[in-house]
């Protein structure tokens, strides 16, 4: 299955899978160790039971046999065994006790009789009957033999190390020796040793009969660590547990062996190369002081658990595979609409609002998403529809505004020079609206042959209302001016006409002047406009007086004043609106009157057209590309005189 790592399904499954695997592992581990412990505990109990049981089985044979020499020792000490009946007694003892292979009573030198250094009657089995003889002689100095010397020295019974008896058909034997004592001269003194030889065949059988799984086994070692029984027969009597430990290089085995010969009971584990890890329990045979071990191979102890574990792992693996498969299917089914929604969204973004949405039959988050999509589709369509209408309306308005601007600009005289036939003066003007249509105005016209009327104004506000107001103002000016002789009268008439019904309270700052072409006398009225500059032909520069009159259009009965001044040839009058001085650059610095004055002063000989275009360039330089916020309007008149 090809899996894209970026899909939701992959992300969910990979996380779920990791968590599932971790949970599974934890569960299996807990289960495994718990069960393992239980098995170990059971095996431990089993091992202890088995070992102790086997030991008891052995002891049941050994103890009664051991009683024989012990009782005999007591009989001799008590004097209840006459000297001449020793040999017949031994013969009977051997005959009647099948576990006893042979028996001897070995006396200390000259203890039995002053003539005999060696005296040791001996009864033994020989081809089904019991024969007798006497032990001892120069070639058989029994006083130095372990079976005699050790119990004598230790003053307690002694079980010999096991040995192979060649005479008895190469059977494994052990000898149990019990010291006996006699009273001589009122003193209890050591008199000799009573022995029984016991064949260990039955013992080997008991231990070999212990069955532990397939390859588990029991083994017996002597008090020197010699193998008495072992599944590997080559070890018996040849090896001790210690030589084997050395050969296999298993120091732990030596430790176990040491514990065993010291009579400790213990459960421990060790690795035997050939059998792997094994559990060993060992315990002591109290009578002979030998030790029995039972060996449980881990492999077999935990075989069921291991099989079961594999089963769990396989089931778990299959389960996880199925889980992955179905989760993948389910998530894919659930999220399939998402992909479709994504496609729809892309189409919608491309402008196709009517694209078909995926069909959702479930009543869940997908349904909600579907609804939202549907709503969005509809809302978008509506919005775009509305937008289209609005845009077309706006476009219409904009085109109308463009026409309005053209009309407005058409109203303003813009043919320069305007009066080529009049040599006494020249003028130049410009109006650069901030928006499509502006609220600034200028105008000039001849009232009669010798009177030039010129004006500049600034309507409050901007845009269409301002431009309409400006158009009205200009139209009124044109119609009123020829009828009146003074700027005051014109302004007042203008004011009256504009104020009446001026519900939007618009107003115009307005500067109006009439120049007598012949005399150079100028009469003017300034209705709230910033004072124009007078540039004298000799280079002097000065403002017109600051007006105290208010802009027109506010109070219909306001009385304006008229001023008179005389201009000389080459004097220039420079009029402007505040759009010039308040032009802002990006640092919000105003162009300012100071810079305007500087420019004008620096160019005393400029013609009106040069001055106006010069100032415009200077302002543009100042604003340096910043958005023009107000109309720029300038009007300059030069008087040459006659």
């Amino acid at each position, binding site marked *: 299955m090809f899996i894209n790592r970026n899909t939701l399904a992959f992300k969910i499954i990979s996380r779920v899978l990791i968590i599932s695997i971790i949970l599974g592992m934890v569960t299996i581990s807990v289960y495994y160790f718990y069960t393992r412990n239980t098995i170990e505990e059971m095996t431990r109990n089993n091992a202890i039971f088995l070992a102790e049981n086997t030991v008891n089985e052995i002891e049941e044979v050994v103890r009664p046999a051991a009683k024989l020499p012990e009782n005999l020792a007591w009989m001799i000490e008590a004097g209840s065994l006459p000297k001449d009946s020793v040999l017949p007694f031994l013969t009977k003892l051997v005959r009647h006790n099948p576990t006893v292979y*042979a028996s*001897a009573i070995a006396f200390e030198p000259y203890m039995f009789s002053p003539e005999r250094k060696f005296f040791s009657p*001996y009864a*033994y089995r020989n081809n089904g009957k019991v024969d007798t*003889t006497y*032990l001892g*002689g120069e*070639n*058989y*100095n*029994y006083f*130095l*033999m*372990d*079976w005699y*010397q*050790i119990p004598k*020295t*230790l003053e307690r019974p*002694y079980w*010999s*190390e*096991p*040995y*192979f*008896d*060649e*005479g*008895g058909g190469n059977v494994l*034997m052990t*000898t149990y020796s019990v010291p006996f004592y006699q009273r001589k001269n009122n003193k209890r003194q050591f008199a000799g040793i009573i022995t029984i*030889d016991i064949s260990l065949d039955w013992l080997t059988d008991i231990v070999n009969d212990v069955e532990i799984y397939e390859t588990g086994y029991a083994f017996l070692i*002597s*008090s*020197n*660590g*010699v193998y008495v029984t072992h599944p590997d027969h080559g070890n018996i*009597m*040849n*090896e*001790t*547990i*210690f*030589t*084997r430990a*050395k*050969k296999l290089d298993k120091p732990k085995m*030596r430790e176990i*062996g*040491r514990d065993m*010969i010291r009579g400790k009971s213990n459960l421990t584990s060790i690795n035997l190369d050939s059998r792997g890890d094994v559990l060993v329990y060992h315990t002591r045979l109290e009578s002979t002081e030998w030790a029995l071990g039972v060996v449980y191979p881990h492999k077999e102890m935990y075989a069921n658990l291991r099989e079961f574990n594999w089963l769990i792992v396989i089931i778990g693996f299959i389960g996880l595979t199925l889980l992955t498969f179905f989760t993948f299917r389910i998530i894919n089914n659930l999220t399939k609409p998402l992909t479709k929604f994504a496609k729809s969204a892309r189409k919608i973004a491309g402008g196709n609002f009517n694209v078909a949405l995926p069909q959702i039959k479930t009543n869940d988050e997908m349904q909600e998403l579907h609804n939202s999509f549907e709503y969005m589709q509809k809302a978008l369509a509506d919005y775009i529809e509305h937008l289209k209408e609005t845009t077309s309306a706006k476009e219409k308005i904009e085109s109308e505004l463009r026409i309005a601007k053209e009309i407005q600009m058409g109203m303003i005289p813009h043919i320069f020079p305007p009066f080529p036939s009049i040599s006494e003066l020249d003028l130049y003007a410009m109006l650069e609206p901030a928006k499509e249509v502006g609220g600034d105005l200028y105008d000039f016209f001849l009232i009669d042959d010798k009177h030039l009327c010129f004006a500049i104004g600034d309507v409050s506000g901007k845009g269409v209302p301002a431009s309409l107001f400006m158009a009205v103002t200009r139209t009124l000016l044109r119609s009123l001016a020829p009828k009146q002789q003074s700027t005051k009268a014109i302004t007042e008439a203008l004011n009256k006409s504009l104020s009446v019904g001026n519900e939007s309270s618009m107003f115009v700052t307005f500067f109006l002047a009439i120049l007598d072409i012949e005399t150079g006398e100028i009469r003017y009225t300034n209705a709230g406009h910033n004072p124009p500059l007078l540039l004298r032909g000799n280079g002097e520069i000065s403002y017109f007086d600051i007006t105290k009159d208010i802009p027109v259009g506010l109070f219909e009965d306001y009385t304006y004043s008229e001023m008179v001044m005389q201009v000389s040839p080459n004097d220039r009058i420079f009029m402007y609106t505040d759009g010039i001085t308040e032009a802002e650059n990006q640092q919000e610095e105003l162009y300012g009157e100071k810079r305007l004055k500087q420019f004008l002063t620096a160019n005393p000989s400029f013609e009106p057209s040069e001055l106006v275009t010069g100032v415009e360039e200077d302002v543009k330089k100042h604003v340096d590309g910043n958005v023009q916020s107000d109309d720029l309007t300038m009007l300059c008149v030069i008087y040459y005189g006659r």
Partner: protein
Amino acid sequence: MINHRIELSTFTTLFSLRRNFLRASVVAVLLLLAGGAAAQKPTLTFVPQWLPQAQFAGYYVALDRGFYQEAGLSLQIRHPRADVSAMELLKKGEADIISSFLLDGIKERVFGEPLVNIGQLTQHSSLMIVTKKKRGITKLEDLNGKKLAIWSSGFDMLPKALLREKSIDVEFVPILNTINLFLVDGVDAMTVMFYNEYDQIINSGINKEELNTFFFNDYKGFDIPEDGLYCLKETYQNRKEDLQKFVEATLRGWEYARAHKDYTIDLVVAEMNKAHLPNNEVHQRWMLDKMLEQIKSGDKEVKKGRLLEEDYYRALNIIKRETEDARQMEFPSLNEFYKPLAK
């Protein structure tokens, strides 16, 4: 139950010799009969001083590899039995060559047996006294008043001489051949061979850290060589050439054993199995290693197979000191006793 020091190699008694001793004379007769077979090649019968074990590995190797045959010898190796020692076989003429401890060899000569040493195999003493640490014997002097197990069958001269020299009074407990009395704490200490009983003690579950040891070769004048080769004076005079070939081939066998230990151990184990002796590889390997060390000259200036003059007189001195009626005895000179045949 055993009546001889039979199982140098193991820890257990081998046979119920209560009855075996009855049969011992029969065995001796059989040995006698076996000695009669003669081949075309000059025949030599060699009897090592004990039962098969790695102590005699070099002889088995030389025989198995055909070194004796290459030397033009037909060699038979016999082992002594319970009641007939190698020395007795030599005296009876049933053995042409035997191996024996130097002290035993000299002693026999002093007591009148006409034998000569024709080669000294080992150069050092393996004898040692071992004691369990829990007995609190940390120096030789601590043995004063303690029970020391010592073999009744010989090898007692050296310990006795050392203890006498050190004025240490111990109670000697004669034992036959096992380490059991020592293991069950029936004695405080025991004289053992480093190559043999010492390892048996270890192999019976006692750790070497639990033991204190006193090596005779650490005491000046007591590093007496052990295994040597002996024959009757008469044999030496008549068959000098054959004997020389035997000594050479034997030394060659030991050298081969040194270079092929695994093979040698297998051979020794096979030899022991043939004799129905309990055996295990671990102990035989230990014994072989120690024997090979003893054969090296060590700090002594002596050639392989040779007897150092000093060692001879040291041994002789010990015998003189330990023999009660030494004054009436004649002691052989080195030349009389030692007839070097090793090149």
